[in-house]
């Protein structure tokens, strides 16, 4: 697998309502959606969350296949959680083999956790897929700005995030290049036991760190050359404003959350 195949957290350009919403609306919306997944107590609730998410994805115009590719990276985590839940949940066993046993509750829990994880990932990746990284961190900065009164450096945090996101592709490219160069010298990144493999990463990591420091120094120089000096008194080229669609989205969110709580109270499966 090439490193570049990872789609998790990438922006998918589009022109939908979801793309156009204010990043703050989307941030709060995503957080509420993620919370709602933990409020849900039954499968009917998940069904409801799933349908709402599916509608949103449909509106956003991001191909489902593209989103699903993001799952690949965390497949291991999902399977691992499901398996652990499957075997470790106490209850009345319906199958046993030596010390391994599966309880009815285990199957229930395993499905429950797997669905929850998949939805968590879909929900949060919808945010990053439909919001440009810069808009996202701008939104975060604005949401956190009240906290700067108690000493939280919200601008600096947001700037750090922007820079980190901006340089992920650059560092991936760099990794790819160094890997190829070392492979051309006979380095082997794929075989051997865990210790050998970890040692095998040194020829990759050392040059990568050197590159990262070089890039960081260049960037710092470029920012200073353009008189960057932190967040105080800084204005924006594109100010953020809530529009009607944001108000409607907020309304839908409240209704959605109420519905999730209501379904949790219902005596359904």
């Amino acid at each position, binding site marked *: 697998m090439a490193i570049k195949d990872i789609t998790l957290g990438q922006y998918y350009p589009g022109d939908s309502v979801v793309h156009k919403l204010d990043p703050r609306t989307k941030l709060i919306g995503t957080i509420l959606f993620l919370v709602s997944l933990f409020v849900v107590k039954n499968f009917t609730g998940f069904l409801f969350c799933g349908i709402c998410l599916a509608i949103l994805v449909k509106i956003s115009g991001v191909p489902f296949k593209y989103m699903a590719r993001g799952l690949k990276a965390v497949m291991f985590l999902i399977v691992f959680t499901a398996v652990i839940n499957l075997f470790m949940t106490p209850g009345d066993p319906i199958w046993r083999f030596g010390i391994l046993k599966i309880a009815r509750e285990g199957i229930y829990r395993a499905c429950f956790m797997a669905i929850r994880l998949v939805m968590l990932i879909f929900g949060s990746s919808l945010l990053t897929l439909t919001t440009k990284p810069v808009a996202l961190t701008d939104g975060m900065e604005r949401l956190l700005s009240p906290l700067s009164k108690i000493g939280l450096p919200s601008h600096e945090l947001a700037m750090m995030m922007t820079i980190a996101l901006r340089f992920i592709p650059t560092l991936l490219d760099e990794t790819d*290049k*160094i890997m*190829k*160069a*070392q*492979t*051309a*010298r*006979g*380095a*082997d990144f794929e075989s051997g036991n865990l210790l050998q493999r970890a040692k095998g990463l*040194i*020829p990759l990591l*050392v*040059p990568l760190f*050197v*590159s990262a420091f070089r890039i960081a120094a260049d960037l710092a120089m470029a920012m200073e050359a353009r008189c960057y000096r932190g967040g105080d008194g800084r204005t924006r080229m594109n100010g953020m404003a809530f529009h009607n669609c944001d108000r409607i989205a907020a309304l839908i969110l409240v209704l959605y959350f109420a519905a999730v709580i209501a379904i949790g109270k219902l005596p359904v499966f």
Partner: protein
Amino acid sequence: MQIEVRELGYTYSEGLPFATTALEDVNFTIPGGEFAAIIGHTGSGKSTLLMHLNGLMKPTKGCVLADGIDINEKTKEAREARRKIGLVFQYPEYQLFEETVLKDVCFAPKNYGFTPEECEEKAIAALKLVGIDPDAKRDVSPFELSGGEKRRVAIAGVLAMEPQVLILDEPTAGLDPKGHRDILNMVEQIRRDRNLTILLVSHNMDDAARMADRVLVLDKGHLAMNGTPREVFSHHKELHEIGLSAPSSSELLYLLKEKGLNVRTDIFDEDEAAREIVNALK
């Protein structure tokens, strides 16, 4: 060692909607001991081609043969053939990582399972070949060297595998004129000492014309021209159409000819060009 490329094709993300063809139907043969220059516009597929030549990328079509052995086979001979094709990337100094120069140059032979003594022997020979004094520099950290020295050490890191084919991707990128000349002279020297087949990717037509026995021109993933420098650079107009040019002295002679001066245009050497102009003006 002879390198033969047959109907080579490579498509990125094959089968997906954003598939792009990087190479298509590339055919050429470089006999052992020959010096070939590959020229082409940025994005013409040069780097993709290079990575196919030592098996870093697997072709989606066609094959690469080294002395008749398909280098992408899974046999021992194919692995051995790949080892004999050394690839020096652009800015190779970014691959340095060890604590000392000697250890870094030993990296490649060590990976191929030579004993520590053999590795050291090969590394010292390689350092001498690139003009680094092994006694003075062997225990220095590679990060303390100057830019030009770093590049030489990195090239030594590939030469330590004792390749029979040396592929260099713009080895002079980012160097000053003196560093540029030094590296190219070094390549010539290595070629003579070890009787290597050389493939040099370059943006500099003067270097290609002066040093190469053969020039390959890539354009949009196709092999546009393949011949001696004289043959290739006589296609002055076609080269311009694909964003390249003839060597500078030849370009000057073309301009003079357009203005009505009766001169030959197939001259790539500055002194010879000067004599031709003087003769024409007499």
